[in-house]
């Protein structure tokens, strides 16, 4: 009778390591974050909170969002210095937090005053996200766009978008976009296409707003270029440049807008014939002014047109 409990205990004692081994094996099979797990560079935060990691990731995410909002609203300098560390911690705590990668990358890449102006960090973040979320076409889409916009690398962008398009569930136009990028890499029109896509798909208000702003910037630049061509035409016909934009408008181009989508008048230098978006305008962006234009303006190929009515934004103050 004494022997029975001992036998039972022995049997159970053998079973425990066996079961544990099986569980570990199954976990390794199922889980995709294994690769990211045991980084030696000191994932101390991760080690502190096993079992509650997901919750901590949420809390850090909240901090990130609040931090960004507070910087926008209250900070004079708007450097967003903490944005990268906060997003990094969030995504290390939960490597599959898709929104954190996308939102984080968007505002890391954006130049001040809207973001941290760290496009390389944004790209690195998205690359980590792509590794951790092999099924996410959205992260790869963002990655592709980032390569195109910020690193001026249309070839890589196209390749990434192609990879993304192969993921089950990815939308059909990723392939189209990839092709377009390859064919006309570096064109403003392509950029506008991409931003239009982002605007249409994003559910989150800040990302949507950011995309809209980019589309308006491109439209403004396009319009400035169109006005510039009108100036040239005027000069050819009359032998001199118009003295001002209203004169140009009055003499045969009645549809010419004098104000950009940011409700600021275009700047015109009669000496050189240059038409540009005013620096004071909310839709001024340095990059677009420099892009060379090669084809005539076409209307935006979108079903839901971006509204051109300007809305006051925080940084316009």
């Amino acid at each position, binding site marked *: 009778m004494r022997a029975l*409990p001992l036998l*039972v*205990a022995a049997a*159970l*004692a053998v*079973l*425990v*390591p066996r*079961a*544990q081994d*099986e*569980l*570990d094996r*199954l*976990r390794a099979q*199922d889980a995709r974050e294994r690769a990211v797990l*045991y980084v*030696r560079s000191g994932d101390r935060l991760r*080690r502190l909170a*096993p*079992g*509650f*990691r*997901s*919750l901590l990731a*949420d809390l850090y*995410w*909240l901090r990130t*969002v*609040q931090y960004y909002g507070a910087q926008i609203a209250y900070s004079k300098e708007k450097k967003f210095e903490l944005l990268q560390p906060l997003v990094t911690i969030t995504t290390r705590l*939960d490597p*599959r937090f898709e*929104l954190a990668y996308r*939102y984080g990358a968007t505002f890391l890449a954006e130049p001040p005053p809207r973001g941290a102006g760290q496009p390389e960090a944004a790209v690195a973040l998205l690359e980590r996200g792509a590794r951790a979320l092999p099924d996410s076409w959205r992260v790869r889409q963002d990655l592709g766009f980032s390569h195109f916009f910020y690193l001026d690398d249309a070839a890589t962008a196209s390749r990434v978008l192609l990879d993304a398009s192969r993921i089950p569930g990815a939308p059909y136009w990723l392939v189209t976009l990839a092709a377009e990028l390859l064919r006309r890499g570096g064109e403003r029109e392509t950029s506008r296409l991409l931003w239009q896509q982002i605007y249409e798909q994003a*559910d*989150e*208000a*800040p990302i949507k707003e950011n995309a809209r702003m980019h589309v308006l910037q491109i439209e403004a630049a396009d319009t400035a270029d169109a006005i510039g061509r009108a100036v040239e035409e005027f000069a050819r016909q009359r032998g001199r440049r118009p003295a001002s934009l209203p004169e140009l408008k009055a003499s045969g181009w009645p549809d010419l807008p004098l104000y950009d989508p940011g409700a600021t008048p275009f700047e015109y230098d009669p000496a050189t014939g240059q038409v540009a978006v005013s620096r004071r305008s909310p839709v001024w962006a340095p990059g677009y002014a420099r892009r060379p234009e090669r084809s005539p303006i076409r209307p935006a190929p979108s079903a839901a047109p971006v509204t051109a009515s300007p809305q006051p934004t925080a940084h316009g103050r």
Partner: protein
Amino acid sequence: MAAGRLSRTAAVAMNTYRESVRERVLYNLLFFALLMTLSGLLLRDLSIRQDDRILKDLGLAAIDLFGTVIAIFIGVGLVNKEIDRRSLYPLLAKPLRRSEFVVGKFAGLSLTLLVNVAAMTAGLYFTLAVTRHPLDLHIAKAVACLYLGLLLTVALALFFSAVTSAGLAVVCTISLVLAGRFADVVRNMPEVAPSVPRALARAVYFALPNFANFDLKDRVVHADPISPAYLAWMAVYAVAYGGLLLTGAAAVFARRDLK
């Protein structure tokens, strides 16, 4: 004969359950757990997207945390409280075997936990329903797995309760529960610190109760499927380890002189 064993064990279990219902400590804990779950509603609004992720995380974390607290703090008092108060004396003089007493106590606290965990889960589902999120059966699955982990915690607490005094039992149980939650770190020790002998790390790893086995919260939040094989082995682990603890508790308790 076996029927007698069962009915005596059941009598002890029901009495233990009744004690937990009538001693009001539990209601405070339940209240705080529900509070924690409801605070998810507030936090959710601060997030950029109105998703249910943080609600689920918070709710499951509350169930895990408070369930563990209940398991430990009631568990460590299960046996030695009766010894100290000497309420055990008239019981053991009856045809109640010491092993039946230990198992009965375990069953009683398990029942208490079941009721409390069910209440907390209902609270979580209610919170999700109020915010009009689709009801997710994965949560119930994750809670069921958590519950198995809680049973293991009870077995641990009961073991120390039967073997040593109340104060020491608390310290030992909490230490092992914490260590068990870091079992993964122990397993990977040789990778991080190569001087640690592999065999030792493995031995310690298997000896510790690995609570990560029962933690499927991440899977639930990301709606990952959980393989039936995994669930089966998890149950085996819980029964084996828990059974070992209970057998040990009964054996040690049977030899103990109760002054």
